[in-house]
């Protein structure tokens, strides 16, 4: 027997013992370890790169009217407590405007009428929630890319950040996407759902549709779009409410 065999045997034994120990209760402790979490996040980075590589500019599937879900589940925040928001809701958002600012040539204040007057995209898509359910809905609104083009991006701009009117546990909801998704043709600011103005529980007056990602990226109650060079300085620095507070993946392609 060679030393090589011994080492290998010991290694296998260690591996087996490690596996056993891991499953017998070490998982929770491992789950708290910063180094281990970083290792696990390595797969997130791999997912992001692999998906982008395979996908290119591909469009998400679109469906027919007959495929529309009879019930569209409303998840996350379904109402907004903020008094200013409630006043706008009561008046049908007549005097409300979407703010577009940050790293842009021209900051914009776009009333709902202006967003409705822009070229519209209508799409029937499947909404995939991170929890595992799906529902098919019809969405209409201007492409985000067109809105951003109106504002004119400065060269340093890398991410579009969506500031929302809702709070969860007292903390503001926000989300962000990169410019690849921001300029994807199916990324729209939907003010219409299933041929009616967007109801409150689905994110009135405006909801982001970013069809190749999971539901939590589709920010509701969008008040302001800020163009930034980095996500590090914002709130928890991970680019979104769920990313900051629960360590959800920033890129939610799976």
């Amino acid at each position: 027997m060679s030393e090589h065999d011994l080492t290998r045997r010991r290694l296998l034994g260690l591996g087996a013992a490690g596996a056993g120990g891991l499953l017998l209760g070490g998982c929770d402790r491992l789950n708290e370890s910063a180094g281990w979490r970083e290792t696990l996040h390595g797969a997130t980075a791999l997912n992001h790169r692999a998906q982008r590589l395979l996908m290119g500019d591909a469009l998400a599937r679109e469906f027919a009217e007959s495929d529309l879900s009879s019930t569209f589940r409303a998840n996350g925040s379904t109402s907004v407590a903020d008094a200013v928001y409630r006043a706008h809701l009561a008046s049908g958002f007549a005097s409300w405007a979407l703010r577009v600012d940050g790293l842009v040539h021209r900051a914009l204040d776009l009333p709902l009428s202006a967003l409705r007057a822009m070229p519209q995209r209508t799409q029937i898509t499947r909404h995939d929630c991170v929890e595992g359910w799906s529902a098919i809905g019809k969405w209409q609104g201007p492409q985000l890319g067109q809105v951003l083009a109106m504002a004119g991006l400065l060269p340093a701009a890398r991410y579009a950040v969506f500031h929302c009117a809702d709070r969860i546990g007292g903390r503001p909801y926000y989300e962000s996407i990169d410019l690849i998704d921001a300029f994807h043709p199916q990324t729209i600011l939907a003010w219409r759902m299933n041929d009616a103005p967007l109801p409150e529980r689905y994110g009135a007056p405006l909801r982001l549709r970013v069809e190749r990602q999971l539901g939590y990226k589709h920010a509701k109650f969008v008040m302001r779009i800020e163009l930034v060079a980095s996500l590090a300085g914002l709130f928890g620095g991970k680019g979104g409410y769920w990313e900051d507070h629960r360590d959800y993946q920033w890129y939610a392609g799976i």
Partner: protein
Amino acid sequence: MRRHGWPTRAWHWLNLLAMAVLFMSGLMIFNAHPRLYWGEAGSEAGQAWLDLWGDDGLPFPGWITIPSAYNLADARLWHFFFAWLLALAWALYLGWNLRRGRLMREVLPRRADLAPAHLWQDLRDHLALRFPRGAAALRYNPLQKLAYAAVLAGLIPLVIVTGMAMSPALDAALRLTVVLGGRATARSLHFLAAGGLVAFSAVHLGMVLLAGPVNGLRAMLTGWYRLPKEPG
């Protein structure tokens, strides 16, 4: 005598670890929405073919999930990391076996294996726990071949493909939900395939234990399988 090459052994232990973690983190992910549907979409109780949403908490308890307390985000982190391990290890192992021709020679059932009389005899042997000893144990019997082929060419690729189909990004790229009959169907098949893999693993381990655990485990650790001395 030499029985298992190092790729077979490495693959088995890696799979044991990966499948255990994937199963346990998968049950936590299922806990987030414990219903299954057929078709493209589904979210409500009336649409489900399986609804485990009880009034008293989560359907799968903490001792069988990763992590043990409800946490969908962390379960996903574990799940995707070990999913890459499972998928890469499967692809490498399958490629290695195909190149050596071993899969075709030893695992793919032959016509004689599938003769009803032969299968029936093999089934009765299994149920009676009559296991081949010595040199006969080195060849796979018909039920073994069928089970191994079903796992290698059926359940593992199915669990990988249905997992990928649930990704909205990969769905845009590959349209897997079109082939599989919808995202909700893919999720149901993912759950069923995972259940099939756990059932296979349990029976597979049970057979190793019944047929001679020391020799079987030694062979899977070191590669060496001990044949009995010839009587006389």
